[in-house]
């Protein structure tokens, strides 16, 4: 099980790296979907099978399909690909990379300093459901309000 974790962690990092460096939007989206599927395997190995299922259904299924629909609607041709190639020069990405590297180093340092503790338990969908509709029922209501606001906002913005 831990082998599965490290393997899919590696896949997730490489796929994400590929996703943010692609020229073509559709290629990037497909790499990102691969990264999300790897993440679902990671959730499963961490003992969260319900979250793994949601990751595949909602993230890789619904949200990424929304992205693909928009990319298809925009119908960007070869011209945008040329433009992207122009934008992705080393002079464009080397500054942010140098600035992001210390942040990553700090995070890694802080996390690796903490004591060695291990994950051993599975939190089942039943426990999640009981907690979700017990103490967290107000959060569920607020999430539904947020989704309604998102729906109305998207309709308002995207209409002709």
């Amino acid at each position: 099980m831990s082998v599965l974790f490290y393997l899919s962690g590696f896949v997730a990092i490489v796929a994400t790296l590929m996703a943010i460096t692609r020229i073509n939007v559709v290629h990037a989206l497909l790499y990102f979907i691969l990264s999300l599927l790897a993440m679902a395997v990671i959730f499963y190995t961490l003992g969260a099978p319900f979250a793994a299922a949601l990751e595949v259904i909602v993230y890789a299924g619904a949200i990424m399909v929304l992205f693909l629909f928009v990319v298809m609607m925009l119908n960007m041709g070869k011209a945008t690909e040329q433009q992207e190639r122009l934008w992705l020069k080393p002079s464009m990405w080397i500054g942010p990379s140098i600035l992001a590297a210390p942040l990553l180093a700090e995070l890694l340092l802080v996390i690796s300093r903490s004591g060695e503790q291990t994950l051993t338990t599975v939190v089942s969908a039943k426990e999640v459901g009981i907690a979700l509709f017990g103490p967290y029922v107000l959060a569920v209501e607020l999430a539904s309000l947020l989704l309604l606001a998102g729906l109305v906002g998207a309709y308002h913005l995207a209409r002709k």
Partner: protein
Amino acid sequence: MPAISMQAIPVEHGLLLAAVLFTLGLLGVLTRRNMVFVLMSLEIMLNAVALAFITGGARWANADGQIMFIMIISLAAAEVAVGLGLVLRLFHQFKTLDLDILSKMKG
């Protein structure tokens, strides 16, 4: 309790993976000028945060981590719907997805 996931994965390794993915997403937001790529990088960052929550939930054998994951996923869905609506507006208005062109708005 089922026999899966009984082999120990250190908590730090889950958090380290989340940190690496978060930094990659941040790098994407900083470097790309195409709005679709920026939205995708935001999704990468949200996903990394979700991984950190799941790891924390697994560490304390608690459902709260997965509850937070569900909240994050609904936030991501709402954000993507509004963001892609903005992408469509941008493209119809300016015929490009260049974010720098938005500085013309002088808002």
